């Protein structure tokens, strides 16, 4: 038997029953396409979620007032107002002599109030932030400028608007130089920020930024910070700097060793880890659902091959009568089911990838930062799984074929 003969026989057999062949391949195509699509969508969704967190900066440390468990929610989340984080703490963090790895730090206070422009009045969130904010977070100014450092201490009554809130207050555009009134205090708009997209995390689009001191004294009447963020020069230093921050603030807050601190420090990295493992679980969950359709496709192959064996029992008998060994018959049928799965696999990968690509064209139009990602592993896995399915589900029919008696060729109906 020549090497090419089994392929020729398989080709003839498959082209002889095109509809059955097509439907069986279709089962695999659907299975593989859905696995690829789900794996790709999972990777893109994970990238989106992690990207939004990372856009805040993966080398950020958050300092929160009040004690909290490392993995639990901060005390703030329960509505507990802690006054333990002060402007003094912020200055200590910013002071390069204390922790040189910290590039800069910013303090935050937040509130909600009615904001009025000449024509509109809306309920808006405002944020009192240090002028150092752009050194800590990625804040991009669309027009105008951000605060100058001295405006922090000068109690300047100026505002930098998020793009969304700017549009709402000044529907005719050009907010620069206009006045926004919050709690009857007029703020001159000096800048408008770039649109950041509908991120789930910390979107600045709908926030009115005002200088920290102004917000604390004029609007809120408080002397503490809601939270602070510190940017560490290098990501690998984050964990060490976290310990340093604990040491520094423990000292400032007179916390004895062994005593529970009245603040907590969190790195974004730990948040990312949690999100990564969550999204991974979600990915595997989705892939396993898609894999069920691949399994169904495999059962389809088995079914189809069993029908083929029954339909071709005389042909098999004849081949054996003229000298085909059981192993050769088995190989030929196994080859057919592997051809079906591999062909289905290739088409399925193409369809899955094109669907994922189509999704990457449509979803960004809905405002999400959706990337076209097809993990190479998903293609490798699909191909491998196809081959295994072809073998596993083809094996039983092929064995059955190999056991057909050559006397079947002589049976005359």
């Amino acid at each position, binding site marked *: *038997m020549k090497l090419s003969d089994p392929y020729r026989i398989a080709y*003839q057999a498959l082209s002889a029953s095109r509809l059955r062949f097509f439907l069986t391949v279709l089962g695999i195509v659907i299975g593989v396409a859905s696995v690829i699509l789900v794996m790709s969508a999972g990777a893109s969704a994970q990238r989106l979620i992690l990207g939004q967190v990372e856009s805040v900066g993966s080398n950020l440390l958050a300092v929160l007032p009040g004690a909290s468990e490392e993995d639990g929610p901060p005390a703030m989340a329960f509505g507990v107002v802690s006054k333990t984080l002060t402007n003094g703490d912020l200055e200590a963090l910013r002071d390069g002599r204390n922790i040189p790895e910290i590039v800069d730090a910013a303090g935050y206070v937040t509130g909600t109030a009615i904001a009025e422009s000449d024509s509109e009045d809306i309920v808006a969130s405002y944020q009192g932030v240090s002028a150092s904010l752009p050194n800590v977070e990625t804040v991009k100014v669309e027009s105008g400028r951000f605060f100058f450092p001295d405006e922090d201490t000068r109690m300047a009554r100026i505002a930098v608007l998020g793009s969304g809130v700017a549009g709402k207050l000044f529907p005719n555009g050009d907010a620069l130089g206009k006045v926004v009134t919050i709690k009857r205090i007029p703020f001159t708009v000096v800048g408008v920020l770039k649109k950041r997209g509908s991120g789930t995390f910390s979107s600045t689009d709908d926030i009115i930024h005002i200088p920290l001191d102004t917000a604390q004294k004029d609007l809120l009447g408080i002397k503490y910070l809601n939270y602070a963020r510190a940017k560490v020069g290098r990501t690998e230093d984050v964990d060490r700097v976290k310990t340093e921050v604990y040491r520094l603030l423990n000292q400032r807050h007179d916390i004895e060793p062994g005593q529970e601190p009245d603040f907590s420090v969190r790195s974004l990295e730990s948040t990312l880890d949690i999100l990564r493992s969550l999204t991974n679980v979600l990915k595997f969950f989705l892939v396993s659902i898609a894999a069920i359709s691949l399994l169904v496709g495999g059962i389809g192959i088995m079914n189809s091959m069993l029908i083929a064996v029954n339909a071709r029992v005389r042909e098999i008998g004849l*081949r054996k009568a003229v*000298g085909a060994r059981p192993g050769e018959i088995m190989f030929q049928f196994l080859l057919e089911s592997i051809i079906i799965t591999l062909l289905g696999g290739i088409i399925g990968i193409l369809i899955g990838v094109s669907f994922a690509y189509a999704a990457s064209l449509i979803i960004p139009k809905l405002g999400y930062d959706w990337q076209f990602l097809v993990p190479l592993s998903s293609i490798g896995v699909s191909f491998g799984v196809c081959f295994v399915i072809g073998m596993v589900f083809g094996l039983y029919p092929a064995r059955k074929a190999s056991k057909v008696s050559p*006397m079947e060729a002589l049976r*005359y109906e």
Partner: protein
Amino acid sequence: MLIEAKRLAKIYANEGIETPALLDATFQIDQGEFVSIMGPSGSGKSTLMHILGLLDRSTGGEYRLEGRDVVSLSDDELARLRNEEIGFVFQAFNLLPRTSVFENVELPLLYDRNSAENTKERVMAALKSVNMEHRASFFSSQLSGGEKQRVAIARALVNNPKIIFADEPTGNLDSKSGLQVMRIFQKLSEEGKTIILVTHETFTAEHAKRILRMMDGRIVSDESVANRRFADQENMLLK
């Protein structure tokens, strides 16, 4: 001696009940003989042919092919012997559908482990010996019954086997095509091929030189044909 059968038996055992299909078959067939195995249905003639053709295994007795004990051979060795030493012609032709005449005849060569050489020449020579070389590229479905059986004979010949087994080869044919097929067998016999023909018709059986008559699983007579028929002459009468 080409075929030596000694007390050959086939007994089917089904849930403790034994059904004998072949009993006590003892005979010899020489190289070049033309033998008919004849008997009504259920007489065991097909069972005997299956065993002689290495399609089935006996449950008792001895069977030597060219002096070689074949009872103990493995399935793979039997397949190789069928491929090299034996050709089959079936009542229902058993050509592969949607496959060309050429490819049908080529089939045994696909499973020939010795030579993948000059396939084309061998197929065409086999087709020529049954006067079907002009139909090589036809599909099997485009042929008449007689033509199909001639292609099937070419398939049986392509590996140049020693023995041809024919199982009711004229059963599906009109009398003219049937005679054509018998003429081919007689010609092959003259060229030295051993031919074993299974049939229930006396007319067909009498084209052979020798008839083994069977009844209820036993060989009841084994004699030469006194007035042998020759397909050549009958063919002329039909015309």
